[in-house]
């Protein structure tokens, strides 16, 4: 973990309010499911913003983010050559090393980008990856999964593309050795419940407001079956049975 300044290589709008920012990696270690805290250099904001690793290449880090408020709007105004400050990589990601066989990745909305790096790392380990992606309407990043997955299932709420309905309607956990999920809590709860019912181990990635991002301030603590845990350090990825017990 390091705090460093790096250059923005590109920062492109890929859909109405979704951007992909590519920055110099500066040798920072990074693995699937981890995140960085970002800050536009010279920003007047108090807190850095947590954004997951979308792709970690040899020399670059890629972040995909949606404009929500001040911080993400400020990030969206950065141009190639501007500098950005990064703190990371942070947190505990997906247990890639423990995996073998077949793994399903289930993502919803802006929970989809971190699964891209996850698919890449699992595939590199020889794990077979199926991807389930739930969108509200417009699709994004689907093609990014193609080199790193066997099957890709897509749903949209109104059915403009792919299956009409929720991505959880498409998932059958029993065929998998594990399920990794990231997205809206309501979706992850459903995935966790389906996995619990079929006894398939499941990991989910939590979001919480953060101040320090490194485990010092306890601003991001959540209650789990194993006591209070820090999303930024103990997570963001947790076994679903401790985050959503009795489900």
């Amino acid at each position, binding site marked *: 973990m390091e705090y460093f300044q790096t250059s923005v290589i590109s920062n492109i709008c890929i859909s109405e309010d979704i951007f992909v920012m590519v920055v110099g990696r500066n040798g920072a270690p990074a693995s699937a499911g981890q995140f960085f805290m970002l800050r536009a250099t010279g920003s007047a904001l*108090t807190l850095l913003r947590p954004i997951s690793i979308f792709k970690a290449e040899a020399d670059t880090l890629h972040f995909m983010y949606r404009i929500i408020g001040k911080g993400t709007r400020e990030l969206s105004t950065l141009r190639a050559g501007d500098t950005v400050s990064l703190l990371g990589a942070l947190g505990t990601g997906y247990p890639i090393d423990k995996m073998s066989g077949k793994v399903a990745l289930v993502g919803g909305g802006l929970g989809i980008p971190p699964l891209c790096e996850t698919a890449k790392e699992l595939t590199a380990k020889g794990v077979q990856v199926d991807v389930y992606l739930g969108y509200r309407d417009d699709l994004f990043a689907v093609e990014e999964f193609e080199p790193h997955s066997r099957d890709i299932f897509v749903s949209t709420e109104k059915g403009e593309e792919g299956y009409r309905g929720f991505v959880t309607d498409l998932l059958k956990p029993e065929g998998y050795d594990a399920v990794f999920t990231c997205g809206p809590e309501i979706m992850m709860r459903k995935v966790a419940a389906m996995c619990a019912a079929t006894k398939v181990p499941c990991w989910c990635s939590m979001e919480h407001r953060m101040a320090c991002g490194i485990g010092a301030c306890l601003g991001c603590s959540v209650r789990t079956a194993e006591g209070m845990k820090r999303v930024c350090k103990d997570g963001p990825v947790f076994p679903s049975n401790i985050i959503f017990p009795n489900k």
Partner: protein
Amino acid sequence: MNLGTTLLGIHFKNPIIAASGTFGFGDEYNELYDVSCLGGISSKGLTLHPKDGNEGIRVYETPSGMMNSVGLQNPGVEAFIQEGIAKMRRFDTVLIANMGGHSMEDYVTGAEMLSKADIDILELNISCPNVKSGGMAFGLKAEVAQEVVSAVRNVCSKPLMVKLSPNAENIVEMALACESAGADALSLVNTFQAMAIDVHQRKPVFNNVYAGLSGAAIRPIALRMVHSVCKNVHVPVVGMGGIYTAEDILSFIMAGATAVQIGTINFTNPLAGKELVTALEALCQREGIQDINEIRGII
């Protein structure tokens, strides 16, 4: 050029102390830089018994600052003595144990235990709500604060620093009351009680409705409070509230503070502790200050 200073008979290599609750026990920030460069570290706020803290949103950005409602999540005094102290002792810096309480008994028992442990200073946080008086903080009324400080003083053989709440009815009266009850030093300010509403959800942002404001937004008021307390008490004062730069540090020292604490800036710039030590040295050099102690209280 000397940044070193003596507080409560203890040497600080510089006047910069990491503020309670923003720096854990130092080990996380030590992964980013050697925290032994700091004058001191004030531990995460302890309570006699372990606490899970508050539910819901705990940190929230505001203009030039932030609000928090962590709710003193901590492992309890016993676990701190067993594990926390050893963690902090790995660092060559002054060890301040910050402790709060929700009843007189808890304060006294906790202070007694910490007093026997390997800490340098006990920082007593009196901003906590008192369960017996319907949750009103100990640090609002001078009489109540005086009572808890005297009780703790009786059992505490370590240097005792009392951390004042800016929400006190009258900060100078509060400071005088704590001094007369036996505080060896005062630190101020803790966070200002504040509020935020989520208009879309039509609900307060925090489950507890009110939360503590910190950061640059409070700096001018904190500075005024530190100044007026320094003018009225004889014990040393540690100043804090929105300190972000070396200039801010000098202004608190010129207002009379012996040392300062830095909280929120650690979040805005995770390397702030280290960078402020260097920046303060450079600023003193530029300003022709040979010894940081020579400009204390000049205003």
